[in-house]
């Protein structure tokens, strides 16, 4: 009954082909409208699927089952291993369908206005469709290899979209960086898949993630360097997830990716693609939990560290899109962290549920933040918050929606962010007090940098603008309003009745021991920001100066980029690639040329033998004969 779900994925694919090949035959606007309405169809189908899945089919027993909507063999590799393409429906994939199609539709709609008059309007829409196709294919994957296929496609559509302004050198460099860093991570993912599939004999998610299935019950495999094969393979697979989700130390591409058009940042680098890593861990969660708990600890540590690391950097940046990028990294870190502390089974899996819940709400408010930022950039033609200030009068709708998003992400009740973040903190609290405090610090920082942004843009010093900034057209503000509704109300969904680690719903409640401190630190962070930035003050100056080296390090993003540049440009280019090229030309090829040179020389030398001079021949003949005779005599007398 779910065969039609394949169209959710295929509609964007055909849009890509249609717009990509025939878009230029029509007016640019046609591509925009066609793309948007296509995505609307896809979104409608997703909502219908969710309704069918949760309410019509519902639970079998007391769990939401996994349903294969469609499956076909794409490539047979060995007797057991074959790559299929299909649609797998379970609570998390259905949820992701909703998130992706909704945000994608909003971004499409918004882009009709935002990209107006840009060269390559139809290229933009065909790429957006390509991205939507790949992302949808990724989340409905029935097996890990299908996921890898779409994982790569998502990466390339991100590459193409970051480099959309391809005449701009920074954009070209950023797109290249994004692709290569994630590609490096994908190498880990691929090795992980190879290890895992060799160990378990299957790519199939149903078999892999069944707690009673052979993949989990067969044990963790032989030990290698102190860790089991399963642990190694899950760590490698997580490496792929960490690359896509911009986790430390593979995060360096994400801030640069902001070179892409803002709607792209909203869709790909905030709401959907960057959470693919979280989705990957969630999808493989039973294996992590049962067969590779060490790998799950790695997930937790990487998530927690990335979260606080990014939050600190976000407080120091001036480019509004970069602040949002680091904020994204920090929030994704929280999701990873929640997965890392989670157990398996209804209540045990609180962290799992919290992570998915946060992914869901985050998609709304972060997409909203980016789209609002786009409207702001559109109005003032700058990315830097120093060039902004007092915009609340000029951009009323953007102002209100941006404020809603800030409140939501800061975890102020009753907005969506409060509920999901509360669950994450509760999960951390269950694990240990330390982790809970860490979570509180991150929350405080989050509230601080978000309101720093908010006050610097909409309050603060009144700037002189070349053109009076004006509110964006309706086609851009409507998506803002719709997403703002999501950012307000998404938290009221009783998430634990739908999405849980084993599909078994449970009742979650708000723990005041967690919620009260969480809200307090959020308010505290926001108030501090208000104090610093609402009126122009010199407090931030003073503080950053008194922090000295630490501030500078945070401002320079802790020099991670420089380290990478050193390793790639200095070491790999200069000390590997260049010597290889030299070695090839001079040693390998040199010896080939050497052979020909020797041949040439020898023939030049010996060609004198055939001189045609009788005297020389006679001389050689006589001396040869004497030489031979002497040799024979010598041998005889031996």
């Amino acid at each position, binding site marked *: 009954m779910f065969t039609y779900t394949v169209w959710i994925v295929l509609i964007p694919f055909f849009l890509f082909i249609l717009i990509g090949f025939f878009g230029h035959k029509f007016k640019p606007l046609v591509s925009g409208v066609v793309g948007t309405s296509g995505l609307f169809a896809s979104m409608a189908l997703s909502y219908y699927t969710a309704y069918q899945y949760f309410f019509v089919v519902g639970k079998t027993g007391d769990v939401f089952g996994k349903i294969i909507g469609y499956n076909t*063999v*794409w*490539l*047979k*590799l*060995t007797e057991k*291993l074959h*790559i299929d393409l299909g649609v797998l429906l379970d609570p998390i994939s259905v949820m992701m369908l909703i998130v992706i199609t909704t945000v994608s539709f909003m971004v499409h709609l918004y882009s009709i206005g935002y990209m107006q008059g840009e060269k390559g309007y139809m290229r933009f829409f065909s790429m957006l469709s390509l991205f939507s196709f790949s992302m949808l294919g990724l989340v409905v994957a029935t097996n890990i*290899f299908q996921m*890898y*296929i*779409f994982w*790569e*496609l998502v990466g*390339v559509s991100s*590459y193409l979209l970051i*480099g959309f302004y*391809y*005449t701009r*050198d920074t954009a*070209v*460099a950023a797109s*290249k960086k994004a*692709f*290569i860093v994630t*590609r*490096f991570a*994908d*190498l880990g993912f*691929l*090795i992980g898949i*190879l*290890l895992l*599939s*060799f160990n378990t004999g299957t790519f199939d998610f149903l078999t892999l993630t069944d707690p009673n299935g052979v993949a989990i019950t067969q044990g963790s495999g032989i030990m290698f360097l102190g860790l089991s094969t399963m642990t190694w393979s899950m760590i490698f697979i997580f490496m792929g997830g960490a690359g896509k989700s911009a986790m430390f130390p593979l995060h360096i591409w994400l801030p640069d990716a902001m070179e892409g058009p803002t709607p792209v940042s909203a869709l790909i680098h905030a709401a959907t693609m960057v959470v693919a890593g979280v989705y990957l861990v969630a999808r493989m969660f039973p294996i992590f939990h049962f067969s590779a708990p060490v790998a799950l600890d790695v997930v937790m540590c990487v998530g927690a560290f990335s979260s606080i690391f990014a939050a600190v950097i976000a407080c120091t940046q001036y480019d509004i899109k970069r602040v949002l990028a680091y904020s994204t990294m920090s929030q994704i870190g929280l999701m990873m962290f929640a997965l890392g502390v989670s157990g398996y089974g209804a209540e045990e899996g609180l962290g799992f549920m919290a992570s998915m819940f946060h992914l869901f709400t985050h998609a709304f408010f972060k997409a909203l933040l980016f789209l609002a930022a786009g409207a702001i950039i559109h109005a003032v033609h700058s990315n830097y918050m120093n060039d902004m200030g007092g915009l609340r009068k000029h951009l009323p709708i953007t102002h209100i929606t941006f404020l809603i998003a800030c409140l939501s992400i800061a975890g102020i009740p009753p907005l969506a962010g409060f509920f999901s973040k509360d669950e994450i903190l509760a999960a951390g609290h269950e694990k240990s007090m330390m982790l809970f405090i860490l979570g509180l610090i991150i929350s405080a920082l989050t509230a601080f940098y978000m309101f720093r942004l908010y006050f610097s843009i909409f309050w603060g010093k009144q700037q002189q603008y070349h053109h009076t900034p004006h509110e964006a057209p309706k086609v851009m503000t409507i998506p803002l309003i719709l997403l703002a509704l999501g950012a307000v109300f998404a938290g009221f969904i009783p998430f634990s009745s739908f999405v849980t680690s084993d599909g078994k719903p449970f009742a979650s409640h708000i723990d005041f021991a967690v919620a009260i401190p969480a809200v307090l630190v959020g308010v505290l962070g926001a108030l501090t920001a208000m104090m610093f930035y609402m009126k122009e003050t010199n407090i931030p100056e003073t503080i950053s100066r008194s922090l000295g080296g630490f501030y500078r390090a945070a401002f320079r993003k802790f020099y991670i980029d420089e380290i990478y540049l050193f390793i790639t440009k200095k070491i790999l*280019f200069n000390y*590997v*690639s*260049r010597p*290889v*090229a030299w070695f*090839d030309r001079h040693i*390998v*090829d040199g*010896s*080939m040329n050497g052979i*020909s040179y020797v041949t040439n020389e020898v023939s030049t030398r010996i060609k004198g033998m055939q001189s045609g001079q009788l005297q020389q021949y006679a001389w050689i003949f006589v001396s040869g004969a004497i030489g031979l005779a002497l040799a024979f005599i010598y041998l005889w007398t031996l």
Partner: protein
Amino acid sequence: MDILTLFIVIPVITMIGIVFCKDHKQVKWAAAIGMGIQLLMAAYLIIHFLMERNAGNTAEMLFVKDVVWFPSLNIHYLVGVDGISVAMIGLTSIVIFAGVFASWEVEELTKEFFISLILLSSGVFGFFISLDLFTLFLFYELAVIPMYLLIGIWGSGPREYSAMKLTLMLMGGSALIMVGLLGLYFHSNPSGGQLTWSILDISKVHIPVDVQKFFFPFLFVGFGVLGALFPFHTWSPDGHASAPTAVSMLHAGVLMKLGGYGCFRVAVFLLPEAAHELGWIFIILTTISVIYGAFGAVWQKDLKYINAYSSVSHCGMVLFAILMFNKTAMDGAILQMISHGIMTALFFALIGMIYGRTHTRYINEMGGLMKVMPFLGVAYVIGGLASLGLPGFSGFVAEMTIFVGAFQNVDTFHRVATIIGVSSIVVTAVYILRVIGILLLGKIKNEHYEHLTDAKWHERLSTGVLIFGITAIGLAPLWLSEMISGGLGPIIQRLLLAGPVH
């Protein structure tokens, strides 16, 4: 006349036709029509072959034709195809068809150029259908010799040097192959009696292991030279850089595959025990090829050099996979030959077209070409993405098949080699994106380039056919993979003699 012989007869007829053509235009059209027919026949052959197989014809080789040619040495004209050779014929006909259209603007000695080109292709077709080692060698030489003329006369840069270097190195390879083939011939009947050149007959006999071990290196290295085996690959960058467009396309696209195919069909298939025992040496060499070629490409500045080193890396993968002694990996090896063949032909075609406009191949002198020639730019990006193994294109299918197959070997040596091979996907991404970034994106560096024109119809046709090839395989690989693995059955059977096949 049987269908396989037609693959040699049609090029010959085309050549004769070209001789009687009056002007450039007629010559080009004669070549295009001849190779068009060849392409249609290849399509027909594939369909016909699949139908035969579906009808339950399980013979090792189909469409076999056997004519005694030189009785005293028992040389036959023996042809026949299995899934592997059918796939290779498909590849050849696509590349030569695109090559004709890519050389549409050859003005100098047009007639002679197309005759040599088609002569070369007939050698390649003959090679892929031959089942008699002697005939196979004959066609092999027929494919290599015209290369000398094509580069020496129509080439660019230091063409005499390159042509000489390429020919001499390949001739060196041929000498080794000849020794190896004679060795096979004289041991083709250990029990005494009639000796044979037939691959099918030799594959049924058991050659003593020490004899195998003596002759295996001759054959593997001999064919390996053409397959760009490290350290015998240096003819490739110079040769490609000097060769005219269509010749580079054919050479990298098809001729280098003769090496891989020869290693596979002759060296490994006929001498399985030696391959099993000595394989480790060549696994090391091919692993080096894979990663070394990729790193070598990162540093190059000449487009053709970049692609030549990239070919070293990709073709290294072919030989690597063959030595993995695994059905999946071998399936991947053949897929990789086809994928790389089409892909690299696409690259060389595009490089030729770009060079024809900008008159330079140095990437640093170009930039922002996407803006002035969007068609060629997009085609280049597609080729690049295919080359770095993006799903949806043939490269991904081939590489993943190889990796999964190679991973079935459990010992540490194979594992390490495989992981080194796998890591080349990152380096490949680096050099591909570097070229795309410098060459196509960014601002236009040279103002003269602003008035360049985009692709003409014949260039669009040529690249279009090749792009169609890589996407068709990339989107629906199953039939091809099945067809190839059908042909692998007897080969795996024979490899089992030598030891376990993982």
